[in-house]
C-alpha cells in the first residue's frame, strides 16, 4: 500500500489541493500575497475566458452526443455479424486511439489545409467550393469537433459491444414472438439495458472533451480565428506557460473548470443514473 500512497499523495493529491489554494494568491517571484477572490473577479471580466468556457461547452455539445450515437449505432450493426467481424471493427476503430492525438492532429492539419488539403480537393471537385476550414470563425470549431469525434469512437464501441454480449438473447426472442420488429426491439429491449454503459460513455466522453487541448494547440493559431476555438485547458496553458507566466490566474481557471465538470457529472448521474 505504501509504495502507491507516497506518489499518490505527492504527485496527485497534493498538486490538486495546492492548485485550489494557489488560485486565491498572487504569486510572484519575490513574494506571495493573499488576494482572496481577485483572480475570480478578473476572470468574470475576462472576455477570452468567456470565449473559452463557451467554446468548451460547444465542443461537449457537439462531440459527446454524436460519439454516443455513432458508437452505439456501430456496435448495434456490428454485434450480430459474429465474433470475427466484431474483433475486426473493434480493431479498426481502436487504432486511431492507439495513434494518439498528436500524430492524428498533424495529419488532419494537412487534410484540412486550405490549399493542399484532401478535404478541399474533394469539396472542389464534387461541389466546386473551397472552404478555409480552420480559418473561418464559423467552420473552425465544428471542424475540430469532427477531428475529435474521429478518434473518440474506439473505447465506446468496445464498451457497447461488451454490454450487448451481456444481454441474454431470450429477451429478444421473447420480444420477437410478441411481434416487435428490430427497431422496436432495439428501442424497448436493448436501449434500456444499455443504460449503465451509456452513462459510462457519456461521463467519460464529457470528461475527455472538457480537456480538449491538443487539437487547439496544433491545428489553430492561438485558439483563433478570433478566439473561435479557444478552450479552457488551452487558455490555462497559454496563461501559465507563455509570457507573462501567470500561474495563479491559470489555477483559478483550472478551479472553475473543476467546478463546471463536477456540476456536469452530477447532472449526468441524476439524469441517467438509476
Amino acid at each position: 500500500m505504501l509504495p502507491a500512497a507516497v506518489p499518490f499523495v505527492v504527485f496527485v493529491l497534493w498538486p490538486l489541493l495546492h492548485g485550489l489554494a494557489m488560485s486565491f494568491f498572487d504569486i510572484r517571484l519575490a513574494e506571495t500575497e493573499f488576494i482572496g477572490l481577485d483572480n475570480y473577479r478578473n476572470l468574470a471580466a475576462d472576455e477570452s475566458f468567456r470565449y473559452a468556457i463557451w467554446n468548451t461547452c460547444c465542443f461537449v455539445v457537439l462531440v459527446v452526443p454524436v460519439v454516443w450515437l455513432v458508437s452505439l449505432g456501430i456496435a448495434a450493426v456490428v454485434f450480430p455479424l459474429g465474433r470475427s467481424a466484431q474483433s475486426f471493427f473493434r480493431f479498426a476503430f481502436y487504432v486511431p486511439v492507439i495513434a494518439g492525438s498528436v500524430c492524428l492532429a498533424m495529419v488532419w492539419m494537412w487534410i484540412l489545409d486550405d490549399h493542399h488539403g484532401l478535404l478541399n480537393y474533394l469539396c472542389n471537385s464534387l461541389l466546386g467550393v473551397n472552404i478555409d476550414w480552420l480559418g473561418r470563425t464559423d467552420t473552425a470549431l465544428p471542424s475540430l469537433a469532427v477531428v475529435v469525434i474521429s478518434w473518440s469512437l474506439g473505447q465506446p464501441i468496445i464498451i457497447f459491444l461488451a454490454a450487448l454480449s451481456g444481454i441474454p438473447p431470450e429477451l429478444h426472442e421473447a420480444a420477437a414472438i410478441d411481434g416487435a420488429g428490430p427497431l422496436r426491439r432495439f428501442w424497448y429491449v436493448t436501449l434500456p439495458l444499455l443504460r449503465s454503459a451509456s452513462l459510462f460513455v457519456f461521463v467519460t466522453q464529457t470528461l475527455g472533451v472538457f480537456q480538449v487541448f491538443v487539437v487547439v494547440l496544433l491545428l489553430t493559431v492561438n485558439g483563433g480565428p478570433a478566439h473561435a476555438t479557444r478552450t479552457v485547458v488551452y487558455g490555462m496553458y497559454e496563461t501559465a506557460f507563455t509570457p507573462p507566466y501567470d500561474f495563479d490566474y491559470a489555477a483559478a481557471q483550472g478551479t472553475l473548470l473543476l467546478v463546471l465538470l463536477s456540476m456536469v457529472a452530477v447532472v449526468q448521474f441524476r439524469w441517467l443514473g438509476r
Partner: protein
Amino acid sequence: MANRWTFWIAWTLLGVAAIMALAPLYWMISGSFKLQQDAMQMPPEWFPKHPTLENYRKLFTAGDLWSGHRPALRWLANSLIVALCISISAVTTSALAGYALAKKRFRGRLFVFWAVVTTMMLPRQVALMPLYLLIVQLDWVDSYAGLIAPYLCFPFGIFLMRQFMEQIPDELISAARIDGATEWHVFWYIVLPMAKPALGAVAIFSFMGAWNEYLWQLIVTNRPEMYTLPVGVSKLVSTLTSFDLGLAMAGATVAFLPMLAVFVMFQRYFVKGISVGALKG
C-alpha cells in the same frame, strides 16, 4: 421495407465512420514516403508515385534538424524509457494498493477508495501548475525524473485492480493463511497470478497513456535532447520555417508504429481492461 432502409443507413454509417477513423492513418503513412512537392500536389497522389525514404533519413541523421545527434532516435529512446518506467511503476503500485483496498480491512479504507476514484475522474490539467512548480523546486525540469514522477501512481489502475481482486474468494486467502503462508506469499503466489488479466490491462493502459501523453511532456522539457516523440514531432511543425509535410508525416509514423505493435500483441488486454472498467464501475 423499413428493414431494408435501416440496413442501408446502418451500413452507410459504418462505412463513413470507418473511413473517417482509418483514412487519416493511411494518409499519414503514405505521406511519409512523399517529398514536399509531391505532398503539396493538387490533385493529390492517392498512392506515392515516387516513394522515397528521404524523410526518414532526415529524421534519423544528424545535422538536418538540429545540431544534436540523431534527434528522432533520441526521442524514440526517451519515449520508450518514460513509457516503460511509468508502466512498470503503475503495475506495481496499482497491484499493491488494489490488493490493500480489496482485501484488507483498515480504517479509512472507503475514504481512500473514494479519493482514488475522484482523482481518476478529475482532469490532471487542473493540477498542472502546482505540479510544474513542484518539479521546478525539485530541479527535475528536463530530466527523466520530471517526465516520470507525476505518473508513478495510476488511479485508474488502482481502481481496476481493486475491482478485479475483490472477486478473488476470501476462502482461498484464508486457506493459504492456515497453511502458514505469510502476507507476502499470499500476495505473490495467490493474488497476483489470479489478477493477471488486470495486471496486463494496467500495464497496457499506463504504457499507452505515457506514450501518447503530450501536455505534460511539452511543459517539462525544454532541451531537444529531452523531447519525447510526440513533443519532438509536433515541434518539427512549429519550428521549421516551412512546414515539411512529408517529414512531419514520417515523424508521426515513427511515433505510431511502436504503439501499434504493442496493441497488436496485447489486444485482448485492451478489450478486457476497457470492459471491466466500464461494466463494473
